């Protein structure tokens, strides 16, 4: 909370600023300027560690849309609540008899209550329909607006001439129920968004960076790749990096979803947004703030959310709406011989009873429920169609490194006359290096007494050279996944490395196989490594030494036999991921946002893979249920309305029941 104080103080102290007020919930600060320039304000913010970002238009519109919707709902609720008592009095009056002056009074009150509800609360529907018709499109707003305006205007005319039925109560209830549906929808979506903002706020604002004279506090905006940063218990990790010295207990529940403390030693990767529970350490940054894994995830979720949001109401096909309009018109035409009033009542009933259209909500709400469930399990579906693809998948191709295995190499064997010297020399040379092989070597040599080498030089693409006791040492990458060490120009030894399958890989793959998915490993790694992992996991089919293009071709070849999914790392496997019917990638950095994957697994490990398929089946189940509910409802309700057995008020009561059933079915937890 100190941030509120810091920002308001810093900006308030600036000359030419009259007022600065932080809106914590919206991550926004309102500033009233009186002579100061925007540049000065932004510079000042930068100084205290906050970057100003342009307010995205959709962000502001979402905010005002929210409060606008709340107010409209309040008016509609006020109207509908009071209307209910009035309507009850009027209906009872019809049976029991009511003096004319009372009933006329109640009709006046109805008009008074209904008018603001229709004109103010119902405006989004009226405007939406007007916009849609101007562009020649049929959206859900069109029948809603038609039903609403006909109900209201007809009642108004009847009220003025003092005879004929009044439907003010119907119009009010109609608007109220529609708004409740819309409110539920937007509210649930915003909650998911806020969850994300809470994540991002976990990254600290200041960091201790190593400079020439000790550590200094700097805003994280000034951190660069390669900086050494000190972190300690109680703080957060400012940006992704490698632990260089010290030991830490960290909580990565934000990324893994599991709340447990993890021990991190030299060589371990640390992620922005995770919390340090114990210990103190120095890490070398591998990504600048703003380009971390966490930022990548945030970007992804945001873009997926904005895409799913636009679809919910708009995308529904005009066919069904055209059908509603035609049915209502047909009802009108059919009943016309029995009098204008009868015909209009039937047409209205049809219009209202089908309206917010449980059928129209069925698909979007199932998508939304699926995406939300996926997100809570660390699976992000980038578009709704990927949800429908997943249950159809028959073949799953798996990349090995970093997906089936942890990606951390381990020393497998040393082939040398003096294995210990080989390892110690390699460790001495690789001491300052960052690549995975160096980490594996250092890990293996951790228990041995360190040697000291001089004049370490990196020869790009070839390895390292150094001097030890006056003799030249060379450490280089050999064929396959090996490292060789030369001493005095002669080969001292070879080391070879392996990566281990993830602990949960075996049961996850087994579960997939039980679901009838055919598995195969496609890897760019050497044949023996791939074979070892495949055997360990019980996967019979594997291919090694594949280039990204060859993986791509394999996907295409398999597609002849059914839908193909590919699990790979986001960037290298892009062609294969894009070609697959379902491309799944494990999220490893900010660049994932631009990757080709259709589905992103936000948490490490293979469990999210299982969850992805599970989520897709769940969404499909919900879709079928929703279609069944609304289909049955419409099949019963429309003929009844056409037969003239449903009054508009009954329609206005029955209609919400069906659409609320669909909404509740989508929102309820499984």
């Amino acid at each position, binding site marked *: *909370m100190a941030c*509120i*104080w810091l920002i*308001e*103080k810093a900006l*308030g102290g600036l000359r030419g600023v009259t007022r600065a007020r*932080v*809106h*914590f*919930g*919206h991550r926004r600060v309102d500033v009233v300027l009186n002579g100061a320039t925007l540049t000065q304000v932004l510079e000042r913010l930068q100084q205290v560690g906050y970057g100003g970002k342009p307010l995205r238009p959709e962000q502001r519109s979402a905010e005002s849309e929210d*409060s606008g919707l*709340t*107010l409209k709902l*309040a*008016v509609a609720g*006020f109207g509908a*609540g*009071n209307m209910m008592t*009035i309507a009850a009095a009027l209906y009872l009056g019809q049976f029991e008899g009511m003096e004319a002056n*009372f009933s006329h*009074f109640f009709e006046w*009150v109805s008009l*008074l*209550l209904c008018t603001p509800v229709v004109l103010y609360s119902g405006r989004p529907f009226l405007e939406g329909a007007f916009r849609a018709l101007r562009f020649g499109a049929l959206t859900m707003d069109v029948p809603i607006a038609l039903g609403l305006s006909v109900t209201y205007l007809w009642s108004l005319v009847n009220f003025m001439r003092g005879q004929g039925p009044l439907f003010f109560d119907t119009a009010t209830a109609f608007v109220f129920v529609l708004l409740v549906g819309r409110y539920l929808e937007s509210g649930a979506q915003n909650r998911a968004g806020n969850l994300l903002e809470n994540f991002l706020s976990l990254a600290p604002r200041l960091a201790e960076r190593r400079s020439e004279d000790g550590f200094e506090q700097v805003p994280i905006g000034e951190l660069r790749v390669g900086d050494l940063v000190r972190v300690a218990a109680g703080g957060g990790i400012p940006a992704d990096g490698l632990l260089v010295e010290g030991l830490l207990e960290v909580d990565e529940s934000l990324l893994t979803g599991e709340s447990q403390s993890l021990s991190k030693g030299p060589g371990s990767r640390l992620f922005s947004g995770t919390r340090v529970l114990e210990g103190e350490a120095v890490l070398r940054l591998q990504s600048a703030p703003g380009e971390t894994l966490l930022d990548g995830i945030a970007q992804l979720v945001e873009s997926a959310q904005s895409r799913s949001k636009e679809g919910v109401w708009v995308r529904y096909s005009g066919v069904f709406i055209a059908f509603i309009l035609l049915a209502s018109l047909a009802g009108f035409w059919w009943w016309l011989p029995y009098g204008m009033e009868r015909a209009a009542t039937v047409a209205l009933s049809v219009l209202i009873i089908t309206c917010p259209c449980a059928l129209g909500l069925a698909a979007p709400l199932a998508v939304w429920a699926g995406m939300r469930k996926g997100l809570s399990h660390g699976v992000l579906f980038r578009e709704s169609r990927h949800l429908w693809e997943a249950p159809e998948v028959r073949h799953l191709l798996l990349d090995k490194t970093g997906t089936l295995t942890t990606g951390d190499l381990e020393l497998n064997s040393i082939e040398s006359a003096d294995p210990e010297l080989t390892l110690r020399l390699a460790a001495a040379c690789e001491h300052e290096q960052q690549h995975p092989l160096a980490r594996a070597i250092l890990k293996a040599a951790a228990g041995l007494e360190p040697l000291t080498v001089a004049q370490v030089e990196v020869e790009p693409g070839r390895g390292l050279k150094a001097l030890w006791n006056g003799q030249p040492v060379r450490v280089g990458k050999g064929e396959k996944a090996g490292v060789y060490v030369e001493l005095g120009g002669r080969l001292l030894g070879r080391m070879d490395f392996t990566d281990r399958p993830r602990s949960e890989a075996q049961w996850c793959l087994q579960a997939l196989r039980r679901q009838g998915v055919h598995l195969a490993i496609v890897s760019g790694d050497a044949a023996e490594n791939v074979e070892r992992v495949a055997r360990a996991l019980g996967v019979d089919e594997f291919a090694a030494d594949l280039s990204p293009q060859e993986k791509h071709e394999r996907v295409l070849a398999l597609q002849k036999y059914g839908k193909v999914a590919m699990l790979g790392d986001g960037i290298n496997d892009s062609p294969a991921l894009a070609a697959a019917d379902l491309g799944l990638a494990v999220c490893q950095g900010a660049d994932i946002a631009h990757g080709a994957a259709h589905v992103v697994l936000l948490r490490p490990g293979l469990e999210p893979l299982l969850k992805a398929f599970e989520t897709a089946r769940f969404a499909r189940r919900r879709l079928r249920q929703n279609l069944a509910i609304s289909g049955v409802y419409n099949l019963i309700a429309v003929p009844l309305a056409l037969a003239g057995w449903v009054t508009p008020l009954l329609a206005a009561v029955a209609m919400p029941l069906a659409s609320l059933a669909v909404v509740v079915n989508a929102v309820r937890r499984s």
Partner: protein
Amino acid sequence: MEIIFFLVPMALVFSGVALGAFFWATRNQQFDDLEGEAMRVLLEDH
């Protein structure tokens, strides 16, 4: 039962006032920041 002519408008006026208060609160951003304000009491005046 003529009291109805007085009671119903009265009820509407009362609930209308409540509705007005809700409008005022929303428009004045009373619901915008539900976390920050609680913390403000801990800060120094400025």
